[in-house]
């Protein structure tokens, strides 16, 4: 439903791209979590998919339409809730939803019914005649979700939809999003982990403008549950290094991940209880090989996340 390929975006004359080579797909009916710390490039990616601005390089397609070539077709199919809900404070909720339905091109005959449905779904029935400027934060967020839903879009893009809400409202908004699964394709950006495990079928983790991981939340955690994973990079003959690594006590598995000019990358799995990093390091060195890098790869999604999103060498 959504295909993003090699997206790169430079702002102004900045030599550092806000996002670089971002590639992922979202299938129909799927909820994709877009996870990353603030400033990782989540909003930039979403703004490109919604046609707010074009990428410097790469393509984004929604329902087969290219965002650059067919922006109108894409915009008709996408409902978008930006980080700050775009609301006119001097309009009533009903007036605003009417306006959005008009500019999104919702069929006139369906308008009244659809607005009623969306209002009910988002719990806005009681505030339809209230001016938006007078609504509480939670209600404003719900109006934001409602405006994204009002033209019955196939694709929904939500940028940090639960930010600034109280815990009860957070649960409500999450349930609302979960209830959309199946009928709609959703991309949900967040920097809150539990949100992803609770609502999303698949996660793309982005850091410093690059995609660093992509999997289901279960796979990401289950794959590593009970296992401590350590990444080792060393120089020397591959078999020799592998043999030395295997000889370290408590090592369960050694995988040769790849090599370049005599350096080899290994992923070593061990039991969770013991930290074998020191032994690994000393046996590689005492085996006569040059150790270039050794770092733990996280265990839970939270660990992975922290790992991927904190500074190198942490």
């Amino acid at each position: 439903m959504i295909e993003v390929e090699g997206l790169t975006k430079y702002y102004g004359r900045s030599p550092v791209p806000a996002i670089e080579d971002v590639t992922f797909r979202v299938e129909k009916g799927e909820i994709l979590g877009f996870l990353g710390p603030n400033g990782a490039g989540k909003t930039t990616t979403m703004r490109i998919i919604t046609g707010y601005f074009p990428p410097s390089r790469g393509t984004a397609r929604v329902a087969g339409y290219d965002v650059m070539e067919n922006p109108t077709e894409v915009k008709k199919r996408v409902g978008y809730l930006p980080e700050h809900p775009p609301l006119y404070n001097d309009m009533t909720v009903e007036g605003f939803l009417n306006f959005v339905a008009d500019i999104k091109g919702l069929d006139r005959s369906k308008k009244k019914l659809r607005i009623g449905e969306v209002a009910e779904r988002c719990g806005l029935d009681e505030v339809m005649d209230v001016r938006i400027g007078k609504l509480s934060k939670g209600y404003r967020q719900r109006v934001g979700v409602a405006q994204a839903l009002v033209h019955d879009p196939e694709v929904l893009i939500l940028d940090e939809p639960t930010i600034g809400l109280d815990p009860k409202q957070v649960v409500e908004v999450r349930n609302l999003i979960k209830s959309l699964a199946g009928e709609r394709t959703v991309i949900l950006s967040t920097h809150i982990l539990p949100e992803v495990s609770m609502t999303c079928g698949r996660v793309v983790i982005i850091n410093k403008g690059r995609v660093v991981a992509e999997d289901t939340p279960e796979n990401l955690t289950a794959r590593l549950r009970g296992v401590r994973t350590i990444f080792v990079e060393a120089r020397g003959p591959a078999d020799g290094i592998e043999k030395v690594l295997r000889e370290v006590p408590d090592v369960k598995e050694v995988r040769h991940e790849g090599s370049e000019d005599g350096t080899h990358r290994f992923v070593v799995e061990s039991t969770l209880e013991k930290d074998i990093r020191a032994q690994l390091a000393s046996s590689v060195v005492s085996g006569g090989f040059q150790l270039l890098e050794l770092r733990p790869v996280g265990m839970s999604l939270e660990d992975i996340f922290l790992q991927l999103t904190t500074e190198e060498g942490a």
Partner: protein
Amino acid sequence: MRGFFAVFKKELHSYLTSPIAYVLAAVFLVLMGFLFRNLVMQFNAFCLTYFSQAARFGGQLPELNLNRIVVESFFGLLGFISLFMIPMLTMRLYAEEKKLGTFELLTTSPISNLQTILGKFTACFVLYAGTVGLTLVMMGLLDAYGEPDWGPIGSSYLGVLLLGASFIAVGILASSLTENQIVAVAISFGALLLFWLMGWASQFASGGLRKVMEYLSIIDHMEDFYKGVIDTKDVLFYLSFTFFSLFLTAVVLESRKWRGVR
């Protein structure tokens, strides 16, 4: 088309539910009423002076033309006050959308920039035309107690509306350049004043430059309208001024795409 109406309705509604439009219209009308009263009193004083002179010394009465003295000055002043009022009406049109983030909603909706520009322009123009239309009451008073010539009054209204359209277009352009409403007012007011003073400035230029400056003088094109003459050249001037400004607004909005701004 539907997008245009939606934006038009939204903007008009927003004007009419906020105090800005009412305050501006009220200030405008109070000032115009005050000026109208002064012009009429002035006309009265002229008449009394000339009548008493004629009675004392005999001879022909000079031509005392209600249109020349009251109506022409009235519309001249109306244009001048519009110069102050319109930037305050147009300042929010794009600047506020950018500040509130609703600009993102407009840009990610399947409506063209042209539709939003025209919707906003038309809403502002309707408000301006409505406010200016209320000064018809003053013209009615003039008609009740004197015999003004309605021809030049009609053409003056047409001229003032065309002038207002140009002002609004420049105001929208200024608003599209910034998210700060004060900056928008400053730019539009400065630019309009520049065009307003162009006729005067042209006196100190020569050759082709002088011709260009004379042509660009935004008030000199009003003269014929005040006198009751609707010249296609002048109508075209205001229309092209308006469309060019709106076109530039579209360019500014489109330019986000290649400028790589946030």
